[in-house]
């Protein structure tokens, strides 16, 4: 498009009329404007990337280097910072706890979210709308509102300071978005397939697990990524519901490490812990960035 209108334009300098093949990237060279826009884009890019790179580099520094020369490079790669964070900083334990919680909470969220969404999207029955809006309304309010009673509800159920308790609470608070997103998704699936399956004698449960669920795979992946990140990064719920340090999850443990660092002055261990907490999600993001961006923004577009 840019090529056509440019060639049509007699004012364009001959030097800029490069063959179309060089412009396949969508960029087109116009000196001042591109310097202008690239300048701003670059500045924001640096503002975003530098803090993350700084944390990574600081993780290899000694405490002295961190304090005396914040912009300097580490004089050597001190991997021991990471092992100190992993063992003495308990980051390793927090990783395991987070993984255990996630395994349970993500499975449960997807199963309960998908079944509820399917029932709401594909069946007409009295109360359908009420149930739908009860779920979806939960998206509106900050979780901090429910903190006081939630603490006691979980305590009375004997689930305070337990990882299964956290799994159930994560699942419950993930249902609003999951149900909202998947209901919209199940509605878009064609009815012809399920009608054909029913005529062939397929029961309603088999129909869901063998036909509809596989068809909903793209939607399940999007909402799965969303929930994975939400549960992996969850901070507030564990702060209220887990007081036992050996049960801490990653985000909570990192914040606790930052507080104790204030007293001990072990900066390199903190940065190593920070890097360990950041890196897994950033690596996953690097690999699946297209799906992740689409998944996270899709929920907003509806």
């Amino acid at each position, binding site marked *: *498009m*840019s090529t056509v*209108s*440019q060639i*049509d*334009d007699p004012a*364009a300098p001959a030097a800029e009329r490069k063959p179309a093949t060089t412009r396949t990237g*969508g*960029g087109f060279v*116009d000196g001042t*404007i*591109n310097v202008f*826009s690239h300048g*701003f*884009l670059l500045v924001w890019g640096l*503002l*975003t990337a530098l*803090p993350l790179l*700084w*944390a990574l580099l600081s993780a290899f520094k000694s405490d002295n280097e961190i304090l005396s020369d914040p*912009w300097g490079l580490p004089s050597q790669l001190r991997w021991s910072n990471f092992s100190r964070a992993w063992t003495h900083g308990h980051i390793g334990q927090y990783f395991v706890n987070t993984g255990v919680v996630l395994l349970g909470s993500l499975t449960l969220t997807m199963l*309960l*979210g998908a*079944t509820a969404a399917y*029932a*709401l999207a594909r*069946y007409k029955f009295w109360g359908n709308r009420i*149930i739908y809006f009860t779920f979806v309304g*939960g998206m*509106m*309010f*900050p979780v*901090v*509102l429910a*903190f*006081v*009673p*939630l603490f006691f*509800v*979980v305590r009375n*159920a004997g689930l305070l300071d337990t990882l299964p308790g956290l799994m159930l609470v994560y699942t*419950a*608070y993930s249902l609003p978005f999951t149900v909202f997103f998947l209901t919209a998704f199940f509605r878009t699936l064609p009815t012809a397939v399920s009608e054909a399956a*029913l005529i062939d004698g397929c029961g*309603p449960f088999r129909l869901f697990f063998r036909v509809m669920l596989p068809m909903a795979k793209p939607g399940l992946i999007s909402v799965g990524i969303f929930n994975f*990140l939400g549960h992996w990064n969850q*901070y507030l719920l564990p702060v*209220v519901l887990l007081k036992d340090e050996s049960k801490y999850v990653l985000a909570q443990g*990192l*914040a606790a490490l930052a507080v104790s660092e204030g007293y001990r002055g072990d900066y390199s261990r*903190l940065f190593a812990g*920070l890097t360990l*907490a950041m890196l897994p*999600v*950033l690596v996953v993001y690097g690999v699946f*960035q297209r799906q*992740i961006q689409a998944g*996270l923004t899709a929920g*907003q*577009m509806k």
Partner: protein
Amino acid sequence: MKHGKYPLLAAFLLPPLALYAYFVISPYAQTFVISTTDWHGLSRSYNVVGLDNFKKLWNDEHIWNALLHNLWLLILLPILTIGLGLFLATMLNVGGRGGRGAVAGVRGAAVYKIIYFAPQMLSVAVIGVLWTEIYNPRSGLLNAALRGIGLDGLAQIWLGDPDIALWAVLAVMVWANVGFYVVLFGAAMQSVPRDIYEAAALDGASRTATMFRITVPLLWDTIQVAWVYLAIIAMDAFALVQIMTRGGPSFSTDVIGERLYDVSFGDSQFGYGSAIGVVMFFLTLTITIAALRLSRRERIELS
């Protein structure tokens, strides 16, 4: 489908509903009940005090102080984030426009998008801890950078100065959220026909005019959603504040969520804390509805 309907509905809806009612609806509902008591949590005994907690709330200057900070965030966070998001998304998607009628994305747009979006991956704990270190007056990246370019006078005790701390926290919120809206607005811009931009460019519309007369009206639906979403984030700045400043220094970064948490889990005034929760509930509801109403405009159909 008539016969087998109810077993499936029961099996598919009852477990999620039960879990949701137990852990989400019942706590929200209980907040209202507890807010009318003087319950201190440990004992089972409590007195019903009616609206006393709310009267106390009305006269509590710390509440008003915290609400004022929420209000600032409520105004500034959406403006800064949406403004910056729209600006960067425009640059990325139609930034290659040379004023000669040609419209294209800039080179490397995909790479920029990957970088901008990256903070979305991080936990609020990671963001809070990272930026606390960046703001560290002695060893932080920010002051070191200012000193490095000879602006020693601008170096601050960012999170320790009551005049600056709230804005330092706001900057982190903007930093963490802009990338999301660049991608969101970018996706919305893809659905705007290119010829509209090219026609505007041919007619000699300036960049500013194109932005406010074309991009903003055409993306209004998306901007409206962004506004509501950011308003909710601004009301809920609690997590970041809790990690970075705990509301200090001298309540200069206190927000309503931090009040609720401190009053409830710090002072065990669960009745009073729940009253704060009830107020937050209605405030969030009002703000969401107001944001939806105020931003309602005639929809522009693209076809």
